[in-house]
């Protein structure tokens, strides 16, 4: 999970472009240059991945070495003399760029990554004005098989970052390399199309991709059409991790954008009613904590895993079909919300459910897949009609010229708009666990929880665990993010050796704040900052426990009657099925 051990490093002296630099032994040339204020271009390098050294764009000259040396893969040693700005280095970098560009479509203007493309950026920096080589375009068909992810192999530069994430971090192995040499291609590991592969649609390959070879499925045009349809009442729910990423996309501090401003912006975009996934997150805690308590007291299947993350659910269905009983039967907040908006909310608002067009705004690509799962029609309609990712909302806001930071705040619509700090925590890995513990504690002990922060399950560590003593009831919990860590926990469960009662899994690094639908995220450092913003928002809320949510209390009083009751089972719970037939 965590790689490498910290060794005692001594400081050494190297010369880089004539400047003496003192740096810990074992630092790469790349990081040494960074420390000296010199940028070395990279493409295959990713701060959270292993060194691949296959793009060779980061080559530098090292005195005494015959060949140019990849800066990412080479550690400095005492007295090393490095030059990054020689004609030889520039000739090599520009040639490599020309070579890659000549085997890459030239339609940057129309590319989804125009402006956020690492290759485009380098081509501009290195002033590649012409190409000596004839353009090669294989005209490979685009892969639209997945409801979440689109692959355009023509644009792939074979850096291997997507494969590494999918293989090493997620252990999903949906992508692999086929053919060789000039004909090499990243392809689904099984089947012709991505949807036939074990892909869980987490969308992390999109963030890993430096160019536009992997992107999210976009439905902004469909949304605009729905918003313009007078017969449709367009209702939205917005997930907790979206707000801060929108702030980021508009160049603001993460806590500068208020939810009320976002509500105003969404209304401008054409949403008739703006509701909140956070409300459903609080509801999830009500149902899930009750389910946990019942499993504990009735000798049910333990440990229980959270089921909010659709990529995790599919991962279990694909790789651990024998362990499906361990998943909580609770639907995710998105789907609980979807089932309620066309029943409970429609009834309260006196709107015919067939007129409701339910759109959720999610940091997630897998949510698009979750919404079209055949089980998700318990309202007798499609519970969620469309999922827009944060990226798509940002694009819509940019297209319409709406800057939410400049807007006055407005209230969320009633009945399904209120939320507590617990709901906000859903955006960060460990957050569902923390929210659940707050409610479970009070349910078990009947006392008010004083210290609300369960810091053991916070932060970017891959696996976090805590033991909570609730008046003698000991609950052992764990929270893990990325599916490689989840697999380790699931293997323990399959071997009958899991010490836990309750385990939270999020497929994306850092949880939903690092989701596949977020604006292109370049490092875990950025994810850690978003996580911090989540904790800030939780602390800012007056109500911080799900069961304190008034609208939730009203929902139970007037509609559901009780947790895990008949109506809950009909609308808020589901079951899982083996997804291995193609795999």
């Amino acid at each position, binding site marked *: 999970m965590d790689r490498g051990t910290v060794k005692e490093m001594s400081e050494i002296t190297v010369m880089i472009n004539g400047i003496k630099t003192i740096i810990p032994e074992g630092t790469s040339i790349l990081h040494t240059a960074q420390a000296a204020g010199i940028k070395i271009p990279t493409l295959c390098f990713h701060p959270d991945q292993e060194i691949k050294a296959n793009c060779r764009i980061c080559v530098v000259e090292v005195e005494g070495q015959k060949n*140019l040396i990849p800066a990412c893969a080479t550690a400095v040693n005492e007295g090393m003399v490095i030059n990054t700005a020689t004609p030889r280095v520039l000739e*090599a970098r520009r*040639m490599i760029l020309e070579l890659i560009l000549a085997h890459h479509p030239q339609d940057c203007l129309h590319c989804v990554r125009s402006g956020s493309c690492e290759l485009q950026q380098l081509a501009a920096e290195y002033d590649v004005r012409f190409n000596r*080589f004839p353009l090669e375009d294989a005209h490979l068909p685009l892969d639209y098989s997945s409801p979440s992810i689109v692959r355009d192999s023509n644009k792939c530069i*074979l850096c291997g970052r997507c494969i590494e994430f999918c293989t090493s971090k997620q252990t999903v192995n949906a992508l692999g*390399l086929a053919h060789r*040499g*000039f004909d*090499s291609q990243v392809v689904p590991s099984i089947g012709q199309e991505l949807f036939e592969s074990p892909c869980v649609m987490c969308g992390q390959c999109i963030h890993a991709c430096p160019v536009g070879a992997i992107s999210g499925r976009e439905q902004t045009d469909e949304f605009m059409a729905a918003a313009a349809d007078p017969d449709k009442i367009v209702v939205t729910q917005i997930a907790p991790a979206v707000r801060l990423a929108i702030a980021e996309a508009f160049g603001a501090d993460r806590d500068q954008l208020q939810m009320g401003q976002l509500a105003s912006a969404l209304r401008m975009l054409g949403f008739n009613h703006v509701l909140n996934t956070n409300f459903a997150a609080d509801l999830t805690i009500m149902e899930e904590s009750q389910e946990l308590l019942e499993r504990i007291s009735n000798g049910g299947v333990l440990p229980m895993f959270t089921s909010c993350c659709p990529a995790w659910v599919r991962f279990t269905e694909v790789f651990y079909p024998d362990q499906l009983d361990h998943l909580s039967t609770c639907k995710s907040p998105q789907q609980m919300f979807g089932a309620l908006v066309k029943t409970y909310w429609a009834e309260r608002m006196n709107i015919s459910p067939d007129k409701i067009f339910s759109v959720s705004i999610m940091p997630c690509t897998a949510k698009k897949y979750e919404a079209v799962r055949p089980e998700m029609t318990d309202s007798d309609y499609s519970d969620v009609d469309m999922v827009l990712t944060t990226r798509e909302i940002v694009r819509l806001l940019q297209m319409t010229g709406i800057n939410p930071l400049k807007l006055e705040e407005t209230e969320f619509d009633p009945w399904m708009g209120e939320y507590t700090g617990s709901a906000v925590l859903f955006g960060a890995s460990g957050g569902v666990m923390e929210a659940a513990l707050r409610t479970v504690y009070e349910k078990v002990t009947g006392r008010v929880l004083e210290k609300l922060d369960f810091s053991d399950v916070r932060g970017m560590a891959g696996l976090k665990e805590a033991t909570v003593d609730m008046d003698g009831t000991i609950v052992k919990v764990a929270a893990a993010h990325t599916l490689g860590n989840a697999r380790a926990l699931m293997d323990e469960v399959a071997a009958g050796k899991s010490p836990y009662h309750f385990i939270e899994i999020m497929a994306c690094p850092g949880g939903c704040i690092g989701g596949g639908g977020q604006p292109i995220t370049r490092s875990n450092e950025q994810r850690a900052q978003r996580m911090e913003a989540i904790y800030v928002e939780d602390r800012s809320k007056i109500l911080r426990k799900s069961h304190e949510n008034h609208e939730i209390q009203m929902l139970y009083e007037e509609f559901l009657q009780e947790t895990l009751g008949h109506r809950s089972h009909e609308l808020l719970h589901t079951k899982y099925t083996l997804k291995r037939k193609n795999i």
Partner: protein
Amino acid sequence: MHSLNEMRKQFQNAYDESKNRIKVVFGLGTCGIAAGGEKIWDAVSSYIDTHGLDIDMMSTGCIGMCYAEPLMEVHMPGEPRFIYGNLKPEVAIDILKKHLVEGNPSPEYIVAQDPRGYEAAANIEKLEEIPFYKAQVKNVLGRCGIIDPDQIVHYIVFDGYEALEKALSSMTPAEVIQEISQSGLRGRGGGGFPAGRKWEAAYKSPGNKKYVVCNADEGDPGAFMDRSVLEGDPHALLEGMAICGYAIGADEGYIYVRAEYPLAIKRLKKAIRDAESMGILGNNILGSGFSFKIQIAAGAGAFVCGEETALMHSIEGKRGMPRVRPPYPAQSGLWGKPTNINNVETYANVPVIIRQGADWFAGMGTENSKGSKVFALTGKINRTGLAEVPIGISLRDIVFNVGGGIQNGKHYKAVQIGGPSGGCIPESLLDTPVDYDSLIKLGAMMGSGGLVVMDEDTCMVDVARYFLHFTQEESCGKCAPCREGTMRMLQILNKICDGKGTPEDLDTLESLCRVVQSTSLCGLGQSAPNPVLATLRYFRPEYEAHIYDKKCPAGVCVELLDIKIDADKCKGCTICADVCPVGAISGERKKPHVIDSDKCIKCQACMVKCKFGAISKG
């Protein structure tokens, strides 16, 4: 610890006794079989059976004389061993009748005799005196063509496993490594890295589990040195690997051999089984406490799997792609364990070094390149074959003395040494001594030992294109410069050969060479430009002729050829017009014909058919 000496003596006696019987020996390596050796074996075998003759038959590995295949040796008690060559089944039967039954050799088919202490026959060249053999030393190939590779007994009689026994019984691992270091043995697979240093690194690398890997993925076009050892003397490799295992502290070895060598795999498997059943491999070897097992991993044919990190990935069941070094295999190799990788010829040198000592080995060769090297001589050379020569011998000696010069009296143009990673060497540099460092200075490399001789009819741009086509196809696709760059180099060479090259193309080509060479991830990419760089260095005018004059001086590049009929020589026989597949030739009977160059597809069928030498290309 048990000794093999007693056993060796018994085997020796039995072997000596067999010399009192009439024996015919056939070279049945892949080369011998391809040349028709098995057909001769079958014919001789059925002749012996039907006539109830008391004659032994034995198969052996390659003796190196490809040019004289198929071969048959005749051993009569008390007589020299006679090597017959260029045989056909009926000729072999005839020789059998005359020589073995009637006692009259057939000198017209004898390539050489090997007196072996008996009185030599008059008027027949002795093996060690024929030009092909004279300059050779047989350190690695000593047993190839002499012993039956499927008989471990033969190997043991010819000093086999003596070195392993010596190492296990009287040397420490450090002493073994010291001996190898002192011998100056360098890796025979291409790079020429000192073997002793490699072994020492693996020895010093901490870990309970280590591996010895043999690279038998011989993939250079025209190279078959390793195959000959694998097929002709497999135990030599096993012994070398076991000694290495003892030295570095490994108990397991892998031979990564290309699946295109089925006979080698078959013989290796038998050799491993036999050695294990005699306690020479496996657990507690010869009671020494040292255990060493060897397994075979068959490669699927990717050239890049000859690169050590790609090779290890392939053994592990992963896609055969190289990875960045360090860590080197000695630190983190097969399955992350310290690993020593050498090629077949390197390991095959080990037993003889241990047996005869580092000083003896270091007595051969040049200052920094010791011992001997096996070369595969191919191309437009009179005596194609396998020759093991002392390092430091001149290329001229190899090509003109060992190889007998250029076929059909043509002129020498160049020799490509080191395969697709190497370079070509022109006539002016033929006196260069063949050693690791001199060749690198010339832009070539020792490589694994492929030596392709080219005559005046070879177009050097076309040669560069041939090798680039090879490396481009074999590029694994991992790193950008090699994946994209080799393709672009090939495209430019194609353009030049097609007469469409521009002066700018030459600049781009040279820039590509520099970048691909200095930035590629592994040796395949780093050395891919070598054939282009070397041909540009020594034969630049030929490139310029293609680009500026739109001519191929060697008359090879089809698009640049002009086929013409000399009106003075043409007798109007009409044969050329008859064979022309596109009707490009016209003319009246008994009057000079003409070629319509717009229609002509330059197939040159007319040139071949013309009896008067009236048709020429240029």
